[in-house]
């Protein structure tokens, strides 16, 4: 009798080994499909932006690049876009909150693949890359300029280049040196005293500055990583070699990411973002002004004169479907923030919209615990990951940076 039990046990083990595939097929077909959908080679080519007819004009991109790095584009002549979006740091600045003319309440966002976003900023308060670029120029905490001063500056420094792209500059001789609807009280008064035709002339130059900068930003794209090399080999059935081979820990992390830990529900597609807004219970930072995320972003993008429905858009209104069909209310947009791409994240701490977490370990610990949101309702639920599982997730996230 004992022998029968022994033999049956052995056979059972053999059967299990067969079912388990002797550890050979590491990923199920469903897992392979998800992994393939995350790889960079599935990133579609960049769609034209019909709201900006200069989006793919090389001279516009060249001017935009000049403006992006030009500290003349600020109130004191000390700051440019690249002060915060540093070209050698994935176009961000490694700070928990950005510092311009003043201290802001949000973390600088990296720019790889930014032209693919339907919404801009952590709260999506702008709906095009060119309308986004106008915001820091006039934000008193960032470049702190005003649109009349920018129009004069463009005419003085880049008049010829500007006119070759956008056509003749308007007559600015009677436009005040400093005026804008968002500036200091004096600047606001000067703006309100301008005839509306003149305001529109200045707005047009201002919008074109944004369009040139956007044309430049379209060239900033994500780069291939170890994960992509691994994913391509997995998809083609080749055995990943060299740095494309994943360690057992990285494989566990990848499986968690697309499986039990549910990360891929929001961080999906080849940019690891669903381009949408979620409350994930990230706590606010004491001492910063109240931040309600998307719910305020919605009101701001609707009020923005440079939004897709406004008169500075090129092309027709069919390009405005994101704005037209956006969710405008409901509890789900309270303290909801845009899902960030995870490409390159491991090498650019800190994390979250106000740099709440200093390390990826802290990020993963947050998802494991999933604390209740201070306002609104968090969409993430406790995962109760073991130490080993948390470390594996971090190991996997690092493969998106090497």
């Amino acid at each position: 009798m004992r022998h029968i039990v022994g033999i049956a046990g052995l056979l059972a083990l053999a059967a299990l080994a067969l079912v388990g595939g002797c550890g050979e097929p590491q990923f199920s077909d469903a897992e392979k499909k998800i992994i393939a959908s995350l790889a960079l080679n599935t990133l579609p080519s960049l769609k034209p932006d019909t709201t900006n007819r200069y989006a793919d004009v090389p001279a516009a991109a060249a001017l935009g690049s000049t403006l992006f790095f030009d500290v003349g584009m600020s109130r004191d002549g000390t700051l440019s876009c690249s002060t915060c979006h540093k070209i050698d740091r994935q176009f961000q600045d490694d700070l928990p909150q950005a510092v311009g003319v003043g201290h802001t309440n949000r973390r600088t966002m990296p720019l790889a693949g930014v032209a693919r976003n339907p919404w801009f900023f952590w709260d999506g308060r702008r709906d095009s890359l060119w309308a986004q670029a106008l915001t820091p120029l006039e934000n008193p905490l960032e470049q702190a300029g005003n649109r009349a001063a920018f129009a004069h500056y463009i005419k003085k420094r880049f008049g010829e280049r500007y006119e070759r792209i956008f056509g003749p500059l308007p007559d600015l001789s009677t436009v005040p040196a400093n005026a804008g609807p968002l500036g200091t009280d004096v600047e606001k008064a000067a703006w309100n005293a301008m005839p509306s035709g003149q305001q529109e002339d200045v707005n047009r130059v201002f919008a074109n500055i944004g369009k040139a900068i956007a044309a430049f930003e379209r060239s900033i794209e994500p780069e291939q990583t170890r994960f992509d090399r691994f994913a391509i080999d997995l998809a083609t059935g080749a055995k990943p070699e060299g740095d494309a081979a994943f360690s057992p820990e990285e494989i566990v992390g990848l499986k968690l990411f697309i499986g039990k830990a549910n990360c891929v529900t929001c961080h999906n597609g080849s940019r690891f973002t669903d381009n949408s807004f979620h409350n994930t219970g990230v706590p606010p930072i004491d001492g910063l002004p109240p931040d309600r995320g998307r719910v305020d972003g919605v009101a701001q993008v609707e009020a923005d004169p440079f939004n897709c429905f406004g008169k500075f858009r090129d092309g027709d209104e069919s390009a405005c479907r994101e704005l037209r069909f956006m969710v405008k209310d409901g509890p789900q947009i309270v303290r909801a923030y845009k899902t960030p791409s995870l490409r390159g994240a491991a090498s650019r701490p800190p994390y979250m919209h106000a740099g709440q977490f200093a390390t990826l370990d802290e990020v993963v610990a947050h998802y494991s615990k999933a604390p209740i949101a201070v306002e609104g309702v968090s969409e993430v639920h406790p995962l109760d990951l073991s130490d080993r599982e948390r470390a594996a997730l971090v190991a996997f996230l690092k493969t998106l940076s090497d």
Partner: protein
Amino acid sequence: MASIWRYILAGLGLAALLVGIVAAVYLTLPQSAPGPDLSRSKKTANGLFLASFEPERGAVRQGELQSWLLTLKTAAGAPVEGAAITVSGGMPQHDHGLPTSPQATDYLGEGRYRIDGVKFTMSGWWQLHFGISAAAGSDSVVFNVVL
């Protein structure tokens, strides 16, 4: 000797049994997972209308704003004209709503309404609820979409 053969035979029998069990488990697994009703055509909740819902241009693509067609017929098969349609929905397993606010934007004739602004941002089970008001009365219908 004979006893060894008996063991081997018994072993083989057990092996066959195991293979059988494993096979049975494999075969029954997919069926045992309960899935939502995926039909694209159905009666509305109170049976006032026959509704069908499908993407306007072929396939469903994750992460893209797409337009769908909602086609409404009366129980007698006549196209429903002039219906007022409201759209809501979400992911029942994640308790969150839709990432966009789809709307009935155009009437295309023959009971067909364009529902534009539909976007599925993640894979999984989505639900779209339609409230329908027309001459025949008001009714509602829910369609499930699994990505």
